[in-house]
């Protein structure tokens, strides 16, 4: 009876009021870019913030080709496509990740490449000096799933596992949470991939200042460029719990059944509903096949 694509088809989302603020997962949601055909800036040089606060601007990207549909961005409504060239980025008004209060950065991406000399990274940068870099494959061939600024300033140590083979070409969700306790202590952070916690190593270098997130895709400080698809990016001004991160991941792969507002489906009359549940639901649950009350 129900539309099979109800949660997969973004046309059922109420894009005028897309965020279900009644969902606990959306509490303290501060920014959400979500690529969806015919909505929120799709096809234009703007990425509309679902929170209506901070729209992004495509730079060095071509609106006609940078927005890719669900067939090219598996498991998503769509995505912004970056390439390891031309300093492609989405810029927006600087968003300060607080040093003494919690926050979460959540994103979904598919890497196209992950090479040995910075081709397979994506980044958030602050101005032109420091950065927030994920999948930074440093010159010494160590793999850091996440680092801030230069190679010597990082939050997570070498990853215990080289992710390159498992994430290239495979849609992933990630979350980096900060509990607000100590900006330079690794224990204040948690990193998740596909809803599961990853090991956080010790911090290194002289990292002391919080990033001003203002760009996605390119860090000019070390010419690192994201090479892949970015279906969505979110910032929350609270620290998501492990359970919430897992719930976020489940929401993402299911088409956001509770965190987005949708147009309600038509309702049946009580008699129709009764006939439906008697003829189908109960028949099925009882293991019967002989009732034919419904057409």
């Amino acid at each position, binding site marked *: *009876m129900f*539309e099979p694509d109800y949660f997969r088809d973004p*046309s059922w989302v*109420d*894009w*005028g*009021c897309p965020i279900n603020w009644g969902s606990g997962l959306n509490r303290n949601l501060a920014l959400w870019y979500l690529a969806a055909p*015919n*909505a929120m*800036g*799709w*096809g*234009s*040089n*703007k990425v*509309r913030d679902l929170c*209506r*606060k901070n729209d992004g601007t*495509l730079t060095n990207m*071509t*609106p*006609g080709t940078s927005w890719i549909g669900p067939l090219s961005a598996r498991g998503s409504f769509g995505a912004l496509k970056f390439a390891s060239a031309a300093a492609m980025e989405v810029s927006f008004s600087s968003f300060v990740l607080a040093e003494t209060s919690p926050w979460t950065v959540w994103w979904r991406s598919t890497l196209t490449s992950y090479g040995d000399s910075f081709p397979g990274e994506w980044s958030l940068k602050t101005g032109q000096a420091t950065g927030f870099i994920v999948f930074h494959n440093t010159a010494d061939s160590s793999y850091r799933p996440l680092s801030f600024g230069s190679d010597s300033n990082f939050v997570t140590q070498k990853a215990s596992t080289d992710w390159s083979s498992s994430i290239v070409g495979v849609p992933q969700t990630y979350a980096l949470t900060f509990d607000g306790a100590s900006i330079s202590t690794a224990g204040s952070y948690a990193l998740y991939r596909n809803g599961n916690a990853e090991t956080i190593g010790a911090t290194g270098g002289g990292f002391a200042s919080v990033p001003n997130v203002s760009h996605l895709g390119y860090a000019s400080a070390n010419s690192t460029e994201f090479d892949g698809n970015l279906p969505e990016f979110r910032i929350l001004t609270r620290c998501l719990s492990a359970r919430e991160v897992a719930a976020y991941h489940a929401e993402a792969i299911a088409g956001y059944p509770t965190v987005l507002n949708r*147009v*309600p*489906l*038509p309702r*049946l009359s*009580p*008699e*129709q*509903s*009764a*006939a*439906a*549940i*008697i*003829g189908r639901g*109960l*028949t099925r649950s*009882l*293991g*019967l096949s*002989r*009732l*034919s*009350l*419904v*057409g």
Partner: protein
Amino acid sequence: MTPLELARDIVAAFIAKSGVREWQDAETRAAIADATVDLVMRILYGPPPWPDPMALPDYFKVEPGTAKTIKSSSGDAAITLTSVANAAARQAATLDLGANWARRWRLEVEYELAATPTAGNTISHLGSWQNASGGGQGNTSGSDAAYTGYSSNIDASIKQLEFLGDFVCTAQATATVQKGLVGVIVPKARYLNLVVYNNSGAAFHSSATNIVIRLTPLEDLVQDAV
């Protein structure tokens, strides 16, 4: 108690009353289901004979209703977009969607610009929903007029309006009428004050002949056939 809850409770009671694991027997299950249907049909329709088995609709379908247009004249609501400059906005007169409006409307536009816009630039559409014609949210007036927000602060004021969607421009020269889908919108009330915010990089054409905003109701149907 709804019929659904009643049917559920009847079946549950039957199962509880059946013998030890008797409900695992196929014939007993069939009998329970038949008895449940019998009781619910009696509750819904009284004693037999009952109406023929209900042909329950199996498919949701959509059909277009009569479109409403917003344009300079002869439309359902007026908006004069002629020569509206880049980075300027215009508000339409209040549009009445009718006492019973469709849940979803397709918003599409036809625009002609006075110069070649930048490809990828946008003309944004925002709306104030209200229960009566006239002034609405974001300091919209309900009349065809320039829109400047509360105090020449368009960007701040439109945050109070619902973002209905962007028209994405292509770099077509003047005299080409660009036609595109803005999106499928969900009205929150009967009356709409529409605001058109031009960020195309060019002004609208000085003639309103080829400027039309069209809202088509997408009427929901529940029916048997595909």
